[in-house]
């Protein structure tokens, strides 16, 4: 079973960040609708199971 840390959209949070926690990362995905493009950032754990957006690194 793939985990988030194997996904292209997973970005580990730097250790000097205010919200750093071991294994925590930002899941950043691009979305598009009829009004245009936007990007979402959601905190995830590196060992969480991947979602339907999974894209291998």
């Amino acid at each position, binding site marked *: 079973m793939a985990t988030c840390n194997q996904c292209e959209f997973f*970005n580990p*949070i*730097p250790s000097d*960040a*205010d*919200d750093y926690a071991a294994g925590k990362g*930002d899941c*950043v995905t*691009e*979305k598009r*609708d009829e*009004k*245009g*493009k*936007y*990007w*979402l*950032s*959601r*905190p995830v754990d590196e060992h969480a199971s991947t979602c339907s957006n999974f894209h291998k690194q």
Partner: protein
Amino acid sequence: MNDMTVQYSGKVLAFTPEDPREAQIPSDELHEHLQDPSTARTSRLKSRCRWKHASGGEFVEKGVQAGIERMRLITEAHKASVGKPEVIRRALMLSNFLTNTTLVVQEDEFIVGYHAEDPNMFPLYPELSYMAVLDYLKTDYAPQPAAEAADIVAYWKPHSLQAKCERYFDPVDLRRGYQVSTMEGPAFASGYNSIVPPYETVLEDGLLARIKLAESHIQEARAEMGAFPWNADAGLKWLDKVDNWEAMVIACKAVVAWARRHARLCKIVAERFESDPKRQAELLEIADICQRIPAEPCIGLKDAVQAKWFTFLLAHALERYASGYAQKEDSLLWPYYQASLAEGSQQPMTHQQVVELIEMERLKISEHGAGKSRAYREIFPGSNDLFIATLGGTNGDGSDACNDMTDAILEATKRIRTAEPSLVFRYSKKSRAKTLRWVFECIRDGLGYPSIKHDEIGTQQMLEYAKYSKTGNGATPEEAHYWVNVLCMSPGLAGRRKTQKTRSEGGSSIFPAKLLEISLNNGYDWSYADMQMGPETGYATDFKTFDELWEAFRKQYQYTIALAIRCKDVSRSQEIKYLQMPFVSALDDGCMELGIDANELSEQPNGWHNPITTIVAGNSLVAIKKLVFDEKKYTMTQLVDALKVNWEGHEEMRQDFKNAPKWGNDDPEADDLIVRFYEEIIGGEMSKNTNYSGGPVLPVGQAVGLYMEVGSRTGPTPDGRLGGEAADDGGISPYMGTDKKGPTAVLRSVAKVQKNQKANLLNQRLSVPIMRSKHGFDIWHAYMDTWHDLNIDHVQFNVVSTEEMKAAQREPEKHHDLIVRVSGYSARFVDIPTYGQNTIIARQEQDFSAADLEFLNVDL
């Protein structure tokens, strides 16, 4: 092209357009030709704007939806913090949300930050009103997954502000309040709120400094508590303060981290998704700003606008819901404008770049959806919510407060053409001509704002209220100059301290038209709810004198206003216990110094309540007095019988009542009684009530869209109105179409009401050809100076033709840029229901006759 002329001062004045190119534009589509975004970017941003206008209780745009993240994350934190002090729980709720919520950055935008997990969504507030959120669950835009949303609402019901407050009221009184027919529903049942955030503190200090200050207060408190000898009276007082300061630290640290999450997001988008080098560089610039702001003080205008935006989201949508955009925007941003335009600036900008930045800010507001209750999705039709920023006026030393930042905001407003945010301009005889010209051009372009407030009346009012301060620390003469409109109409202090933090202090409405209706019928509402709505004050058919009716109304008004203000103060008492605002408290210098939460601390009273539909009641009283009691042309029984059948079969009688003297024509037969009505009852009785802050509650005559809602719940009235027709559209505005003696007669009527008032909204519709002619500015300026000298509190303008509005009704898809002034706010005309559109079309379009021009002493 028009051929309107007036003979004045020996000349024939023609009103051809000042800009000759306008002669080529069809008059029924003028508004579609007025926008002029300053850059290609703001033009793009406007064309793809994610509007969130509500109307008739629904959202106009498809795809707008309630989000679930805020509900989910605050619930998680609330469950995990059982046993902790309530203020700490509130801070932890905010912290959990800010740490774990999904962030949004959109293409092309420069100001970043959104309050929900998707730019098409808006958050909900189950901790406020359970009824409001239950309503959402039944709609097409309910939060998903539905089962989870239902569980969350069920969890919060006993913990909600609504549940905490309801138990202190008789269910009969509650049901009367919930009708929204004699009074606006209690805010604890809707979640509606307003605030004036201390933006200045964020921009000047940065949050790291506030954290340090709170931490040092905690250390001092601990030292005091640990000292010998122990004194319980003094020592125990520190406990709540320590909790408040600790909550401030938790909240501010979470906000800093949340802002820096945006920095990370922008950097990731720049490095991994964006291919345009220019946009990459810009995203990295935004990342730098978010890394520093609002942690540190602002160094330039880009910092300031971003810091202000983050603070707005927190104070108005994330920590708690609040309507509004209250700030003295030009004064607030002026130091940073100067810093950015100065030689060698660390954040250099040109004036035109400032205009672009403000256009972008206006478009961010235009995308800001509000998770309001059903009532508030009805009463501001054609807009997202109420957003009103204040400009102009005078500084603490009495000098003109207008500056180049004022002009940049006005220019951006005129160029980008959005309904929101609305602007208030504080009019003073000291206001510089350059800025007045911008104000006029915005009005002339039909934006419906700036609405105009009398600078000296507002300033003096702040000083009057200061006298009642419970802490003896009300506004100083200098601070009294730094006021803004808290929402549409009521002045309140702005700045680092003493600002209004909750609508429980001032706000909400009472409806004289409905009260007059039930006063005729022993307090019973036969026309809408079929229930007793107030005390049994007798049947008008038994009254022998007009005074008996007058006194019956007084009693209905006394009962309802006391109930309404009690609702606010009971809510305040529970907000103090359960709805603390540690982030906002951290910004207020008084809260920080004293260790008191923002809901609890009151240094500057600002009590008010909005009478809406007063003129229907006033005109009705005039008609009754004349036709029933003075001339005895009809009996009261005949009148009441005619009302009960909606005048059917009594058309001649209805015309007699309709043609009785009306407010707004400088006619003593109407004005004498109505002035007495405003001063003795509307203001006189209201001011007998004392609110939480120890001051009187005064009337702010208003309307927003409530004149439509309340009109639809009010049966026929003795002013000749049919059942369900809209009521009067402004606090002191003449009823639609009845101000027939010209604009200066309106001013002369309105100027007569002076005592026991806080504010009164005056809607006027001015002629398009006159305003857009070369004489337009001079006429308007002379009008404004006369208005000022007559000591009138407020005026706002529609400048739009009936022709254009009717064209928009026929083909709404071709009129997206048509904006109108509803009342207290502006809206996109095609997003207003037909019922409401017709009320604006019905407003008297004021021409200026020679007599008017003479009264105004216009120099042409």
